């Protein structure tokens, strides 16, 4: 059984379809993840600012958004995004990559909001108090004292978010956006060899996420060196 699966992978799957997995599939997966994390970080930073603002309605709205996104499955959000976005913005109706990306970005933004908020709030309160008593304004305290320290907490967490998003984009294959899991569906549909394709895709996911998470922890160590 296992020997046959391995043989199938090397004889029937890889010679004919490897470029689909490595170029198309991995390419789309990384592209989708990059868009998601970049846009998610920008949007998440804005939301985090709103969440820590002094105006209560802003705080409530952001909290509600974050709770709803974190409390519902991503697949459900993708379906809603896919079917709702084109109805709200008809111009996007022909591009499912965009509507799926929007759903992913909103999802990621909710998690990034929490990453940034907790990163900033994790900086010891004494730092703010000390800066304020030395005569720094509130804005100066934030940009010169709190944020530089918060970045050390935030960046590695964002890296991990990227690794998580790479895996989460696999759900977008329901809409055949072209990512790794889509290529699994495509090749499986051609060869009827499901287990073989799953193993190939699994190895690619693992190699990418493993390398990335190693890089993130090396980066984290480098940041810690100054302490």
């Amino acid at each position, binding site marked *: 059984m296992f020997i046959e699966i391995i043989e199938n992978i090397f004889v*029937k799957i890889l*010679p004919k379809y490897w470029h689909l997995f490595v170029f198309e599939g991995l390419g789309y997966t990384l592209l989708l993840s990059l868009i998601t994390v970049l846009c998610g970080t920008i949007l998440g930073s804005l939301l985090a600012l709103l969440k820590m603002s002094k105006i209560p309605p802003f705080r409530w709205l952001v909290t509600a958004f974050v709770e709803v996104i974190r409390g519902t499955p991503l697949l459900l959000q993708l*379906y809603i995004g896919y079917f709702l976005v084109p*109805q709200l913005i008809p111009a996007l109706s022909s591009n*499912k990559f965009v509507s799926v990306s929007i759903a992913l970005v909103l999802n990621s933004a909710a998690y990034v909001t929490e990453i940034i908020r907790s990163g900033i709030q994790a900086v010891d309160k004494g730092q703010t108090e000390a800066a304020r008593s030395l005569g720094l304004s509130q804005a100066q305290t934030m940009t010169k004292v709190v944020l530089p320290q918060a970045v050390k907490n935030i960046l590695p967490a964002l890296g991990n978010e990227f690794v998580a998003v790479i895996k989460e984009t696999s759900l977008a294959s*329901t*809409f055949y956006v072209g990512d790794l899991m889509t290529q699994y*569906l495509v090749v499986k549909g*051609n*060869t009827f060899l499901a287990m073989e394709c799953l193993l190939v895709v699994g190895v690619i996911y693992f190699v990418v996420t493993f390398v990335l998470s190693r890089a993130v922890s090396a980066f984290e160590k480098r940041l810690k060196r100054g302490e």
Partner: protein
Amino acid sequence: MKKILALILALVMSMAVFAGCGGDVDTLDANEKAYNEAQIAKYWAFEEAYKNDGATEVLKVAISPDFAPMEFMETDKNKVVGFDVLLAMYIAKELNMKLEIVTLDFGACQVAVQTGTVDCSISGFSVTDERKQNCNLSDYYYAGENETEQVIIVKADKANKYSKADDFAGLKIGAQGASLQENLCKDQLTGAKIEVYGDINTAVQALLSGIVDGVAVAKGNAESIMANNDKVALSGFEFEVSSEEENNVVLIGKGNDDLTNKINAVLAKAYAAGLYGEWYEASKALSGINTAAEISFDENGNPIVDAE
């Protein structure tokens, strides 16, 4: 780090070795090969002929490309192909619209029609009560005997054990969710336990892994599966299929009677022109089935056509 690099290098090298001896053993003779290649060429000719990209109005059609030979992905050109694709292109051309194919999974195709995300879906749909209630259905189109016969595939070594519905009592049978086959299993295999899967291929994998004992599929689909996998075979059992369930329909948005009527007119035209059979043979060849298996050739290599 060096160890990991070495490992990766070893993997890549072994891949290269295997790649050299890749490909299936060619068991077809020259005549059969030529016939299949001619069918494949015919498919691309149809596709070229039905292109209508100049039109301004767009017809959006949802297709779930996991159902060879009716619809699947051709991986060299990275295109959705198959009988239903030719039908969609033909419809678009006749209506002078530009075709836009939206690939979704089977369940999402039906939702996309209901929500109006697409105009219609052509993906090997049979008639069921749920579909009647939620969508407009076109007239029937008929892909050939192999798409109307519904069978159960089992592991090859057990194929001769099953010949009637009772033989499946107490066994697990896989079927695609929200499909004709699922309904047939529920109605006719009363003793069996039905396991529902998102798509046929996963059900086939479950069969190979021993999770289910059989999978209910259309016969044409079964042929594609068996062409790629000698571990499965047809059981002796065949579902009884009512005339209404025999044929495929196009799912169209509820209440869109205008498009329904237009599509019905095109279907009638395609039927009258005898296109269905040709599309089906060409699609089958493209999906890797040996379409020449039941054809004999004369000494010049020309297929002998039965005068039926």
